[in-house]
């Protein structure tokens, strides 16, 4: 238990959840077959807006984060209406370019403090620790210090948000909206011919992705004390794409697994010091050679479902036979 409560691991779990939320944001846009690399840009808008609100205007966190998401969404409207006309690699690079433009604007604004970034952003775990202390739990409970308690509550809150988003994404795939998305992904022309307003749905998916990325940005800003324009550069955009491609973008579990692996991998590889990046790059190449559709695809889910079912059948049968022999 001590091992699990280590703040190092708690912090990594927080990063995993934030990245998983980003994974969902790219999954949402990719559900319509759109390859958007703008999520890092939307994330930065969410992060800066919410951080500025809490830092300068003293707005409570639970208001600031959704406002950040909304701001990202608003930006998505400005950029999305023209860009969603584009397809494939054109869209990818136009959105990547959007991210760059956002970064340069942030560097130039005074309110964002340019390259120096925003420091001293109120941290969620510190806030919660204070609440716990105020509640008279300064000594902590059950061997947990108040800081660990704060961290765990943050993870709990993040997990609830993630859980809600996963639930939403799962429901989406079986809903009318989700079927329209899938139809567009499979064949945009066919979808259009069969009466689906492809532009509307693509834009909607773009908005949803931007909103979720904005939320993730707001949350990320409030678990790390500091944000700077560097955090949302090209690397971030590619990293988010990697979650979806490595894990698989067919089902929502794919980006989730992708974000889990890609957040853990650099930490696990710390022992390799100088060779860490090389191994990381090598793993990407190997993964793509063997699982180009991502680790989890619809086939995989079906396969495991069958396997699990047959296993549980076998075990129930075993149970029955044991009972009968008795």
């Amino acid at each position, binding site marked *: 238990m001590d091992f699990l409560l280590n703040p190092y691991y708690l912090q990594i779990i927080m990063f995993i959840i934030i990245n998983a939320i980003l994974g969902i944001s790219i999954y949402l846009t990719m559900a319509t077959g759109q390859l958007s690399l703008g999520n890092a840009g939307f994330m930065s808008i969410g992060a800066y807006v919410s951080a500025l609100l809490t830092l300068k205007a003293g707005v409570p966190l639970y208001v600031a984060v959704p406002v950040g998401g909304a701001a990202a969404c608003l930006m998505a409207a400005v950029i999305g209406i023209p860009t969603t006309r584009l397809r494939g690699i054109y869209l990818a690079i136009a959105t990547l370019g959007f991210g760059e433009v956002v970064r340069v604007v942030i560097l130039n604004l005074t309110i964002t403090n340019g390259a120096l970034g925003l420091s001293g952003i109120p941290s969620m775990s510190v806030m919660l620790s204070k609440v716990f202390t105020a509640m008279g739990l300064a000594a902590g409970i059950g061997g947990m210090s108040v800081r660990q308690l704060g961290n765990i509550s943050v993870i709990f809150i993040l997990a609830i948000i993630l859980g809600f988003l996963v639930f939403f994404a799962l429901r989406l795939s079986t809903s009318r909206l989700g079927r329209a998305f899938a139809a567009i992904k499979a064949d945009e022309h066919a979808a259009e011919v069969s009466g689906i307003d492809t532009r509307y749905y693509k834009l909607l998916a773009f908005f949803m992705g931007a909103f979720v990325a904005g939320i993730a940005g707001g949350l990320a800003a409030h678990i790390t004390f500091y944000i700077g324009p560097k955090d949302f550069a090209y690397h971030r955009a590619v990293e988010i794409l990697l979650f979806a*491609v490595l894990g698989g973008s067919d089902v929502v579990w794919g980006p989730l697994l992708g974000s889990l692996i890609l957040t853990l991998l650099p930490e696990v590889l710390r022992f390799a010091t100088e060779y860490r990046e090389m191994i990381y790059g090598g793993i990407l190449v190997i993964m793509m050679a063997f699982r180009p559709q991502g680790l989890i695809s619809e086939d995989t889910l079906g396969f495991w479902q069958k396997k699990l079912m047959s296993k549980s059948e076998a075990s129930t049968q075993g149970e029955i036979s044991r009972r009968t022999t008795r």
Partner: protein
Amino acid sequence: MFWQQMVNGITLGSTYALIALGYTLIFGVLNIVNMAHGEIFMFGAFVGLILATKFNIGIFGALLGAMVAGAVLGYLMERLALRPLRRRKVSELAPLISTIGVSIFLESLALRLFGPQAQSFPGVYSTQLFEIGGLKISAVQILILAISFGLMLVLRFWLSKTQLGKSIRATAENIETANLLGVDTQKIIVLTVMLASALGGGAGVLVGLAFNAIEPTMGITMGFKGLAVLILGGLGNITGAMVGGLLLGVAEVFSVAYGVSSYRDAVAFGLIIVLLFLRPQGLFGSQEQQGGR
């Protein structure tokens, strides 16, 4: 000042064009954005540097060596990172990620091999200055301009007139059909990747000469600009890469000269966003690939 800035812009632009040529060749044939092109470019620069400083062979020897090194890297990349993907039908994302993997690998390898310090070619090559009517132009600037235009013309001629060039174009048009028509597409693909990478390696030496800063992360910055040019000029279009590169170079320099230098890095992508709205296929892209694959 206007004309001097024009010269600056064209020099910068021709380096962008050089890099974009490699991108566009590979994209034209394979429909892949080779994210590792910038790193191959960087390796070329280092190989050229080592040849020039340690073995003291002239600048053209270094250029040749860098191109060979680029071609070898290109071959390895094709063999290890692209071919396994081609054997099965996969989405266009897989090779994108695979080449990103290669780029990360190469960058950290270069860091191990060559160290992080920025290095430069010995001064003899870059200090000759010509003054023409009040304009200062260095020998390297002229060299780069000449080589990139030369390469563009050679490439165009080669692709349209020679047997091999025709095979490349047939493969670019449609791999299956080319295969049926008896083109060894496997060989053509390997050749294209090697050619593009050799160009990248050579570009590394030229850019290293022009800007005096060879270091492991130079690939990312330049590669990024090359990517922008790829889209600006129209995917897979050689003239487009050339004109797009020059345009971007001049636009960047003029944004500094007559605008605000702090927005310089937004120029490339600002141009792209504007262009894509007006002409989704790029400056020279053909109508049929409008805004998509």
